């Protein structure tokens, strides 16, 4: 089926409302935007500082629509320097934000492979031998020195879910925040965005109206603030409509998968502790563990797009990572509180779209603000929202419209002189080396960081290899064929069978932390899918799926929402989808109309993760 962003054929009248500013998505960027803007909307005597053109006599009408069921259901295991956040809240007391803690100590840990199943290059094996000779304890070594650009000194450990919830409480009086209300698309007239259209409700999975159909309303506004993240439907619609600036591409991605865990009694990890790991379960996979107050930790891994395993699975790798002796000594006996996953746009500034156009502006991760060298995104996203709000106020005071020219002279100009831009440029090529391999990648990052971006190791992304190529020498072709047939017959992904075959031990489920992927969805993610919305994952050309032998989309799907289908086209189960968007950048088949894209359309959708602790 060919997905379309054009309206479904309906006979019902589509209503429209007028507002002044409409925001798409509520995350740190929108938080920064609304926090800054809300302080300027009223005079000290309580009268409106700016009268609403759309509702004369009232203050500026600012709306924000968020897909998730609540504003605190965002995902990120965040440690941040919080420079921008602190600038917005100079007297910030972390105790006011549940789960927040000051960073007190940081460690970077190299993890050896304690079981011999990790796929390690000769260079990595040489490094392993060297480490084992010297100081390895618990199959790991804590690096004695880490470069300054990796530090989060004086920063904060946050639960982004809790942080979002807290910020929402600060701004609600000045803006209307509507969770559970996905935006289907931007309304584009000529070269300008004039508002948004919300998703139709009361449809079947294909989007056809049912008996209780309610067309998504059009919200027309002078300014549309697009902050729907790296895989948001509106941001990508604008990318397709207006293109990307010359030379800008979104080649680099990662999936971050995390858990929130109650540590067992007796484990003494001080709140504010930050652990980052590298080297295991595969060299390309980085890990993190951040300690919140009350013996609660956020932990997880990042699986990057440069990790060229066509059967890569974040969940199984996350469990092996937790079981590493260096970490398991803390985690054994712990209990899962929450679980989640999200895509990270790791092209950084080189994936920056046009930041503004007629009637719209882009902020947050989808605007290319993530710093891929320092591994920092929350504070950068927040700051882009602040910069836009300052620009909006400047234009309101000058009674100037939100045209492309005016937004470029204010918002884009502020971005160009900001620390987000300055540091983003240094980070620009920092991760290119990972396309050559782990060692090249680490060297490249180090060089880029130490030379402030002047030197880096080059490398270009490659298409995913075939399973046979990746597992050559480890799994015989005949065994691969058999595994593939068995998994197709049982409609299960390949990754568990392949990892078992490659020497990874079975996970010793304990029913409280080491649990099945589906239990993580239900117990940790609390995933929800309200009825009456169309499916948001659509396969553009079924023939391409039928001919695809890899089906990376199934293997890396964070919620096992994609499973083998009888005719070769994967089946999509919306009730398991966490909206991480990983399928979008893990399609092994090129889209004939857009060679850099895949065969999967990731449209606007409802529901997803329902946990407030991620």
């Amino acid at each position, binding site marked *: 089926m060919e997905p379309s962003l054009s309206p479904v054929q309906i006979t019902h009248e589509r209503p429209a409302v007028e507002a002044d500013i409409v925001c798409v998505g509520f995350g740190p960027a929108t938080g920064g935007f609304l926090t800054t803007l809300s302080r300027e909307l009223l005079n000290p005597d309580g009268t409106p500082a700016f009268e609403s053109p759309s509702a004369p006599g009232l203050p500026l009408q600012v709306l924000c629509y968020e897909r998730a069921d609540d504003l*605190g259901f965002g995902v990120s295991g965040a440690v941040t320097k919080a420079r921008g956040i602190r600038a917005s809240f100079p007297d910030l007391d972390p105790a006011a934000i549940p*789960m927040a803690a000051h960073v007190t100590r940081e460690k970077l840990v190299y993890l050896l492979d304690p079981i011999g199943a990790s796929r390690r290059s000769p260079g990595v094996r040489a490094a392993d031998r060297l480490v084992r000779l010297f100081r390895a304890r618990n199959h790991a070594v804590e690096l004695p020195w880490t470069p300054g650009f990796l530090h989060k000194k004086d920063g904060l450990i946050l639960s982004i879910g809790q942080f979002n919830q807290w910020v*929402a409480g600060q701004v609600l009086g000045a803006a209307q925040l509507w969770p*559970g*209300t996905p935006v289907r698309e931007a309304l584009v007239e000529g070269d300008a965005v004039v508002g948004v259209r919300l998703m139709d409700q009361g449809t079947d999975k294909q989007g056809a109206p049912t008996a209780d159909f309610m067309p998504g309303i059009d919200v027309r506004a002078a300014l549309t603030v697009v902050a729907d993240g790296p895989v948001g439907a509106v941001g990508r619609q604008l990318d397709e409509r207006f293109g990307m600036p010359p030379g800008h591409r979104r080649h680099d991605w990662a999936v971050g998968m995390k858990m929130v865990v109650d540590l067992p009694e007796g484990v003494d990890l001080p709140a504010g502790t930050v652990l980052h790991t590298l080297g295991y379960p595969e060299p390309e996979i980085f890990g993190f563990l951040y300690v919140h107050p009350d013996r609660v930790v956020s932990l997880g891994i990042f699986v990057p797009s440069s990790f060229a395993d066509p059967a890569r699975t974040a969940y199984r790798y996350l469990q092996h990572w937790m079981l590493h002796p260096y970490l398991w000594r803390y985690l054994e006996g712990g209990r899962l509180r929450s679980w989640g996953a999200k895509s990270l746009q790791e092209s950084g500034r080189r994936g920056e779209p046009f930041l503004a156009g007629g009637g719209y502006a882009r902020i947050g991760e989808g605007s290319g603000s993530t710093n891929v060298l320092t591994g920092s995104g929350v504070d950068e996203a927040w700051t882009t929202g602040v910069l836009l709000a300052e620009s909006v106020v400047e234009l309101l005071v000058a009674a100037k419209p939100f045209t492309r020219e005016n937004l470029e002279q204010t918002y884009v100009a502020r971005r160009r002189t900001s620390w987000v831009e300055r540091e983003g440029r240094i980070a620009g090529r920092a991760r290119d080396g990972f396309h050559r391999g782990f060692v090249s990648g680490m060297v490249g990052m180090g060089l880029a960081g130490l030379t402030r971006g002047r030197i880096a190791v080059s490398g270009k992304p490659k298409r995913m290899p075939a399973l046979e190529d990746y597992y050559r020498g480890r799994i015989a072709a005949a065994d691969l064929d058999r595994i593939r047939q068995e998994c197709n017959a049982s409609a299960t992904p390949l990754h568990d069978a392949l990892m078992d075959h490659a020497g990874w031990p079975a996970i010793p489920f304990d029913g409280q932390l080491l649990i099945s992927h*589906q*239990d993580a969805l239900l117990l940790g993610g609390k995933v929800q899918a309200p009825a009456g919305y169309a499916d948001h994952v659509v396969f553009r050309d079924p023939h391409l799926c039928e001919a695809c032998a890899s089906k990376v989309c199934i293997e890396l799907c964070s919620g096992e929402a994609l499973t083998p289908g009888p005719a070769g086209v994967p089946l999509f189960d919306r009730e398991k989808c966490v909206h991480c968007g990983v399928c979008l950048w893990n399609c092994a088949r090129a889209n004939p109309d857009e060679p850099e894209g895949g065969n999967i359309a990731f449209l606007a959708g409802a529901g997803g993760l329902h*946990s407030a602790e991620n």
Partner: protein
Amino acid sequence: MPESFQIVVCGSVVPDPLQTLTPEIGPNGPALKNEPMLPAVLDPWASHALYEAAHLAAQFPCSKVWLVSLGPKAKLQQVMMTVAQKAAFEVIALDGSASGFTDAAETGVALAEAIQAIPDLDRSKLLIFGGWESASRGAGVTLQVVGEELGIVDQFQGVDELTVDSTGSLRILERLEGGQHQVSACAGPPALLGWATGHLPEPRNNPQTGMANMRTVMPALQRAKPVTVSAGASYSAVTLPRQQRETRILKDLSSDQVAADIIAWLKDENRDS
């Protein structure tokens, strides 16, 4: 046929039951671990009452719906972001504890006082709605106390359906045991109905309704009157039922197949024990 009703729905917030809920005894009595950080939802029983109120009001166009809520103001504010898109109402907020362990009589008196303070309330049109239970604990008496305080003697509990005939009299289905309903007739308002689940689906999010509601919701929250309700009885311990999870995802099964599957599982459990 009556021209309109004045429907007052009593309902407050409870912690989102989908979150990780761990009971503990706090300094002020029973509580949940990390309770401040838990997102809240409108009590599911009260939600049914609100949807039924909106449905009834839509049939009698001059009707009006109020939602009287006693709960922490910040939580009420958060919940309004979700509820206000589903039904048209005016909120009357009381800033206080929504814990299920507060004294039901004191809560009932506070709600009744708030209702009595509604300007131009007409008892000949007045229907008090609420949940017959609560997801926060469910003493099951708060709504009755509200009715007693207001002097409303026609009270119905476990209501699943309300119809209004051409004379304005009310026909009410109350739950009995064994899937049976008792049919009651009432001459008309004032009456109090404690709703079970009703029969209406959760309304769709209507952004227009939300925008209209928000013009009154935020001012109402800002002027929320502080209310203190005491803890009532003391509790030595509070626990949730022990859960054992064994997940299998099965789809598109008939109700008979689902029932058979559950029975087989229960039998297995019995054999193990």
